[in-house]
């Protein structure tokens, strides 16, 4: 059974931790301390079991056969779509498109929405916090259309100021694309205000929600953005599956971006008519088991309660910030007042990659490098940082293990 917070509302992290079989393993003879969930989170038993049951009992192609298995697979796949819709409170499941993940979702919008519409000199506005997945697709489409990519700079805390966003918009701004939560620093961006500003100027808004959905409640009806992208593997689901949630009127007007089976109604060598939403954007046999796993991950999050997860992680963030600030020579990069449970840091005299290797030898997994956010690293004038990120299963003892391993790193380097 999934762990649930007990009736007193106390979040029993040890029970949650036990739901994730991989966390019990050892690394280099030490108990695993997994602090790299922002790169990819682990999967609970219930997700593993749901995928396993699908493979053993229900697999067939979807939307094709009249036989029993195809109907079961189709029902599971479409149930998953409805779970995704419900999870982010999207308007309708017709606007929920399964993709390989956030990156593919953004590329879909860049190629199928932006490319046919952008004119030379039109502007795409990003922020200085973006992951490469929310930069490069726009640079590609800018190269194809003559549009210009601009970025709102961050301040020394890693914050994006709404007034700065406003001052970077003009009559040529067509698309505003930004993360809801920065993967490199953890900053939570004011996406609702940014969306309002953009809409007031007639621009369309894409939000990269990859780092937001595992940590906080997302309500797309309230947010009102035009496109929202996220991945299952950062929210306890499988890799290779994610979603693009789009405004139906925009999706209807967009051409398909890949051709193949499932996205058509009729094909002759003279003319093809395309399928309706969302299938128009789902060419080929989809990642059915991935969608089943994604739905199971949403069920799991719901069983804990996303607000309980948020509160737990915020508590850990406060403790970890305090304990890491006490480590000699340690500097936290990214000190926004509103942060998700992500801490990027450097240590004087120890390169992040040396740190990563030493922590790994102690069983502590952190991400080291540029976090696919090289503009952020450049802004803070560091080649790389170490990053500890927390999830529903992270424990206070994991923070203590990190601090102990950091002391070990200082021993090696002095």
């Amino acid at each position, binding site marked *: 059974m999934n762990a649930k917070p007990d009736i007193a509302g106390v979040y029993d992290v040890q029970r949650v931790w036990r739901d994730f079989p991989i966390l019990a393993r050892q690394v280099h003879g030490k108990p695993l301390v997994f602090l790299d969930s922002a790169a990819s989170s682990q999967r609970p038993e219930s997700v593993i079991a749901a995928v396993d049951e699908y493979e053993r009992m229900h697999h067939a192609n979807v939307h094709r056969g009249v036989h029993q298995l195809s109907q079961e697979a189709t029902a599971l796949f479409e149930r998953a779509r409805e779970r995704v819709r419900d999870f982010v409170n999207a308007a309708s499941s017709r606007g929920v498109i399964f993709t390989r993940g956030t990156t593919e979702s953004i590329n879909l919008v860049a190629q199928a929405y932006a490319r046919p519409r952008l004119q030379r000199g039109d502007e795409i506005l990003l922020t200085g916090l973006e992951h490469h997945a929310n930069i490069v697709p726009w640079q590609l489409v800018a190269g194809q259309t003559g549009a210009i990519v601009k970025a709102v700079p961050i301040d020394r805390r890693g914050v994006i100021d709404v007034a700065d966003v406003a001052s970077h918009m003009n009559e040529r701004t067509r698309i505003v694309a930004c993360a809801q939560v920065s993967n490199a620093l953890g900053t939570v961006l004011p996406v609702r205000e940014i969306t309002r500003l953009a809409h007031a100027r007639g621009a369309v808004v894409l939000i990269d929600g990859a780092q937001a959905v595992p940590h906080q409640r997302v309500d797309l009806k309230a947010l009102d953005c035009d496109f929202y992208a996220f991945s299952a593997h950062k929210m306890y689901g499988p890799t290779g599956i994610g979603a693009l949630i789009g405004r139906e009127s925009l999706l209807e007007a967009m051409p398909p971006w890949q051709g193949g089976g499932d996205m058509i109604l009729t094909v002759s060598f003279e003319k093809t008519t395309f399928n309706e939403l969302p299938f128009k954007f789902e060419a080929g046999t989809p990642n059915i088991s991935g969608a089943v796993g994604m739905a199971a991950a949403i069920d799991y999050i719901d069983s804990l309660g996303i607000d309980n997860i948020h509160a737990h992680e915020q508590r850990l963030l406060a403790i970890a910030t305090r304990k890491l600030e006490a480590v000699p020579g340690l500097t936290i990069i990214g000190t926004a007042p509103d942060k998700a449970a992500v801490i990027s840091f450097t240590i004087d005299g120890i*390169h*992040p*990659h*040396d740190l990563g*290797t*030493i922590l790994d*030898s102690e069983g502590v997994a952190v991400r080291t*490098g540029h976090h696919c956010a090289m503009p952020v690293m450049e802004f803070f004038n560091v*080649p790389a940082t170490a990053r500890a990120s927390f999830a529903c299963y992270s424990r206070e003892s994991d923070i203590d293990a990190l601090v102990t391993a950091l002391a070990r790193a200082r021993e090696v*380097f002095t």
Partner: protein
Amino acid sequence: MDLKDLYRDVILDHNKSPRLFGRLDPADSSADGHNPLCGDRLHVTVKLEGDRVSDLRFDGKGCAISVASASLMCEAVKGKRRAEIAHLFNEIHDVLTHHDAPVPDDLGKLAALSGVREFPVRVKCASLCWHTLNAALDRSSEPVQTE
């Protein structure tokens, strides 16, 4: 895996106080090396006398393994002929990439890098400087990458 095998005293010393650090100006050749995954950047300048590297310097930023490897390399190749340098490169390459390769006696202090092979993801850190030196010797102006 033993951390002591990776971070030997020689490595820590050369990381802390890199030898032949800086740039030669004028130089006969130079090259940039970049490891995009780590963000490591090295610049190597060389002076040549005929077939011999009469002097060289490196500078840049990187992890302890890449800085120490560059420092040890500069010491090892200074004054050597191209063929001798190529021979050293082949030896160090074998030591870094083959788990069971014997460590040749003539590697000298470079043998301190042999522990890197127990840490496969760090091999590129140790080899970046050698690729950069080779690029400088080939008079290539293109930045080299180990990714």
